[in-house]
Structure formats: structure tokens, C-alpha cells
């Protein structure tokens, strides 16, 4: 796929995602409107705010105007990056979130990488040894992995590996005395990442291994697999060059589809491990009734899901020439 083709496709998918994003903002607006009490509370939060600021919000969002106009103003404000001000944190909400974003991304992407490697690996093993004890074991494992609340798994991991065996730290993202950078800092970060990333990835491992198994079994029946074998291809070639490639689209779709769940899981996991990311911010803003932070996080997470689906689409296009039609 040429860069021009890719750019065009990305643009088309971005345009297609616009209604989705507007929809999410409308959901936020609806929540603010329907919430019991004064909409200013929903826009500002329960922390004491200077009266001048309350008046400013009233004016900006046109709270004395008819609903349609309020919606228009809300879209306008959000569209221009005005996510409000958090008096609990004494900070602009957008800034606050961008500050916490890297930690969450680090946790999520690590978990995702673990899940893809282990999930795809397990799925391949299960598919190749169909109906063997290994296959049944994988099935039970993934079923269980899908049923365990990840935050509880996090607590158990802390009980065993941090409190019991004293092997790994259980709270935070780095140690107080950690060097600011370099390999030692990286290792220190890994130690803190290990437990939360694993707790977060289990559900994803379960999902990916099941989809990989099913998709692979289906693809293995395809005629082109038979043709490749009739050509004398080694089983490794059949699997890597044909089967996995063709089995990939449903796996990628599932990963993107469940991205929202992992973001949610991340919120819970961050709370369990005191991880300084968006999830923990969400937890804190609940206790402090910091509503603008909550709605902004909802917006960001939704954008994350939309983005994940977009990336999945582009991945499909890169993989499958039939999807690429401009």
C-alpha cells in the first residue's frame, strides 16, 4: 500500500468517525442535562469555585438558553478543547488528563503486548492440538480468565507476590530512590509494571487465545491451505505465511472491540496498584465529585476506542488488498 493510498484511507476513516465522536459529546451533554441538580455543578464539580467562575461557565455554556442552543455551545466549547477546570486539582482538566495519560498508556500497551504474545501463542497451540488435553486446558483457562474480576486478581497478585513473597512492589509506578533515567530506571519501572500489567492482560489473553483458536481452525479448512500443502509447503510456512495472516482480521477486530473494556479494566487496576494514570484519576474524581474530570475522561476513553477501531481498520487494509479500494 502506497503512502498516498494510506493517507487517503486514513482520511476517509477519520471522516467516518466524526459522527461517533459527536455522539459521545452528545452523550456527555445529555448526562449533564439529566443529572439531578444544577447543571453548573455537573460542569464545575462539587469543589468550592469562585462565583465569578460560575458566572463565566453560565455564560460560556449559555445555561439560560434553550436546550438546542446549549447543545450547540457545549459542542463548540468541547470542540475547542475547553474541558473545564478542576478545582480539586487546581488545574485545567485537559492538562490534568494529558499529564496522567502516559502512565496509563504504558500500562495498557504493556498489557496489550503481553496479551497478544501469550494469547496468540496459546490460540495456535490449542488449534493445532485440537481436542487434546492442552486444548481443553486452554479453553478452561481462558474461560476462567474471562470471568475473574481483574481488580480482584490484582489484589491476589499483591497478596502473593508483594506481601507474601516480597518479590515485587505493589503500589506506584517507580520507587522513590529510582534513578531518573537509564537502564536502571527502566528495570525499576518494569518491576512496578509487572503485577498490574499482568493483572490487566489476563482477560485479554483469554479473549485473544479463544478468537485465535476459532479463527485459525476456520482458516485451516480453506482451500488455499490445502493448495499450499499440495505445493509441498512446510507446516511452519503454511501457518505463518497463510493461516495466521488470514486468521488475523477477526483477532484484530476483537482486540479493538474490547479496547474499551481494557481501558475500564485499567481504571480498576490503577486503583488497586496506586498507578498514577487516568484510571486512578477517575477514582479520585468520584470521591471528590469532580464532574468535569469524569466527563472529560469519558470523552478521552471513547476517543481511545474510536482510535483503536480506526487502527484496526487500517491494519485490515494493510493486510487485505481487497479492503484497500480507494
Amino acid at each position, binding site marked *: 500500500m502506497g503512502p498516498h493510498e494510506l493517507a487517503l484511507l486514513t482520511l476517509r476513516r477519520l471522516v467516518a468517525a466524526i459522527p461517533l465522536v459527536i455522539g459521545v459529546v452528545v452523550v456527555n451533554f445529555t448526562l449533564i442535562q439529566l443529572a439531578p441538580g444544577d447543571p453548573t455543578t455537573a460542569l464545575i464539580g462539587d469543589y468550592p469555585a469562585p462565583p465569578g467562575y460560575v458566572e463565566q461557565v453560565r455564560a460560556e455554556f449559555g445555561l439560560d438558553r434553550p436546550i438546542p442552543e446549549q447543545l450547540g455551545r457545549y459542542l463548540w466549547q468541547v470542540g475547542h478543547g475547553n474541558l473545564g477546570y478542576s478545582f480539586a486539582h487546581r488545574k485545567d482538566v485537559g492538562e490534568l488528563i494529558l499529564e496522567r495519560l502516559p502512565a496509563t498508556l504504558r500500562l495498557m500497551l504493556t498489557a496489550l503486548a503481553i496479551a497478544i504474545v501469550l494469547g496468540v501463542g496459546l490460540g495456535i497451540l490449542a488449534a493445532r492440538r485440537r481436542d487434546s488435553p492442552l486444548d481443553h486446558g486452554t479453553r478452561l483457562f481462558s474461560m476462567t480468565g474471562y470471568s475473574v474480576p481483574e481488580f480482584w486478581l490484582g489484589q491476589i497478585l499483591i497478596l502473593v507476590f508483594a506481601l507474601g513473597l516480597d518479590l515485587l512492589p505493589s503500589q506506584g509506578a517507580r520507587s522513590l530512590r529510582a534513578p531518573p533515567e537509564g537502564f536502571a530506571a527502566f528495570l525499576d519501572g518494569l518491576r512496578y509494571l509487572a503485577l498490574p500489567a499482568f493483572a490487566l492482560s489476563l482477560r485479554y489473553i483469554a479473549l485473544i487465545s479463544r478468537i485465535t483458536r476459532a479463527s485459525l481452525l476456520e482458516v485451516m479448512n480453506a482451500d488455499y491451505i490445502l493448495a499450499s500443502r499440495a505445493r*509441498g509447503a512446510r507446516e511452519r*510456512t503454511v501457518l505463518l505465511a497463510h493461516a495466521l495472516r488470514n486468521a488475523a482480521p477477526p483477532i484484530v477486530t476483537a482486540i479493538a472491540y474490547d479496547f474499551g473494556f481494557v481501558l475500564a479494566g485499567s481504571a480498576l487496576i490503577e486503583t488497586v496498584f496506586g498507578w498514577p494514570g487516568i484510571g486512578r484519576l477517575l477514582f479520585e474524581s468520584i470521591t471528590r465529585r469532580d464532574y468535569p474530570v469524569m466527563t472529560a475522561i469519558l470523552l478521552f476513553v471513547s476517543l481511545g476506542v474510536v482510535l483503536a477501531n480506526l487502527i484496526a481498520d487500517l491494519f485490515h487494509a494493510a493486510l487485505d488488498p481487497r479492503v484497500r479500494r480507494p
Partner: protein
Amino acid sequence: MTEPLLDVRDLRVSLRRSGREVSVVDGVSLAIAPGEFVGLVGESGCGKSMTAFGLVNLFPTPAAHLAGGTVTFHGGRRLDGLPPAAMRRIRGAEIGMVFQDPNTYLDPLLPIGHQIAEALREHDFAGDVDARVLELLTLMEIPDPALAVRRFPHELSGGQRQRALIAAALAMNPKLLIADEPTTALDVTIQAAILDLLRRLRRQLGIGVLLITHDLGVIAETCDRVYVMYAGRIVESNTTASLFATPRHPYSQGLIKATLRPDRREALFSIPGQVPSPDSPPAGCRFHPRCPIAIAKCMGQSPELVSYDSGSVACHRAHDPAARTTWSASAA
């Protein structure tokens, strides 16, 4: 026949179906001489494809497996019971295969050049792979080979896809090509072109060809000899000329009658009834429920394949003069 290229004796293929073994190829014997063009014909479901898969011990479903017989290939090598790694080195290198539907037998996600090159790479081709791919595409008469290598299957016509698959099958210069209904899924004009191509390749490369089809018309145009298969067994074999001139088995006669279309407008003939399911094959001669000249013996005793002149036939009434024109008396 001198030293045959392929000599198959009593080949058996079974399928596991809900816990039961079902025999779909039931003692097939056939031989192909080097450079010979041999046909295998029969209605759908007769076990033609399963016979072909049995030869290279590669099946479309894990439920199917070899259940007996010997397959002796070029140089007296036994293929049945060969370990998987050794069998793999024969597939695609010494025996090429082409299938019915060029649309589904090409991987949609890979350029055709890559799929042709796969046959070369997997057999550790010593020469220049890219050059060989171009040479093959030229040999297959695919226009603009340099561009075509980078085309994806969906960008090609059905005929070109089949040519690409044939190119992959012939990449390593095999001695035998098994073509399982290579033209069935194609338009009539393209069918003729592919058959022309196969004939030319056979002349040019001197390969033996096993052509599987349910269309005797295709056989008449291409094959030196032909095997007629019914319900998992060979019922007649002969040179193509003799088979068309004097078919001995009522089933062969029916197939020929169903093929020859006189210029006069006449209702197209087809043999009444259906191929029996391999789950419960009829006792005795498996054709007897559909045979207009069946006698009592046919129901109890299975006829042996008996040689005569240039061919062989498995019918209790093969030498009965009344059995020469089986279908004229009863034809509807």
C-alpha cells in the same frame, strides 16, 4: 507398458463419520506411463478427488485417511506409508496438483508471484527464484508477467488464476501433474484454452497427467487412456478411442450417451438415479440399482475387473452382445 510413472494397486480411502469408518475409495488400481495423459471420470461423489488426494496422502479433511493399497512412483519408490517429511518433499516437487476452483485455492492476501515462488522456496530451488517465476508465467501465457507477479488473486480473471495455480504446480518441473477438474469452474471458452494449455505443457515438458473430470467430452479431447469410476471403484478402463468406440460397462455407455450431443435437437440424456452414498453402498454390483440390464447375479455378487484386448471392465454381462446397447432400449 514399460516401467510406469505411477502404479497404484488396490488404493483405499476411508472417512471417519460420526464415529464410523466409511469407505469412499474402495480398492482402486490404476497406472500412468511417463508422459501419458490419463483421464479419471465419474459422476460427482464417486470418489475421484479422494483417489487423487490418496495418491499424495494429503486430504482436505482430517477425517479422511488412507486405509490400504500401494502407490509406487517413478523409480520404484513407495509413496504409501512414507513419513510426512519425505512425502512433503515429493508433493509440489515431483507431483504437482491443480484443483477445481481457482478462486478459493489461491490465498487472497498474497500476490500470485509469491504463491508460485513458494513452491520453489519450499523445495530449496537452486536457481534464481524470481527469474523462474517469470519464466513460468510466460510459459502459462499470462500477459505482462513482470506486472502479473505482483497482482493479487482478486485482480485476475478466473482463467488467469488457474494458470497461476498451474504455474505453481509445475514450478519444480514435476514428472506428474494431477489436475482435479481444472476447468469445471471456468467459462466454456476459457475451459478450452486451459485444456489447450495442458496439452501443450504435456508435449513440451513430457509430464504425465492425471486429469479428473465428470465430463467425458473433456477426456475425448485430451486423454490417451481413461478410467471410469463409480461409487469408489474402477468399473472400466481403456484407451480413449476404444472406450468411445466400444464401451463395455453400462455406466460408461450411459456417460457417453450423456456426453455426445447430436446436431439434432434431442432431449439431453442423463442416467436415471443417483450415485449411492458411501455410507451404505448397494450389495453386489454397486451400479445395479441404476442398471437397466441388471440380472439376479448382479445383486449378490460383485463383478471383478477383468482384462480384455486393450482394456478391462467390471460387469457380469460385459461379454453379452445384448449389453452393447444398454440404454437404447430403455432410454426415455
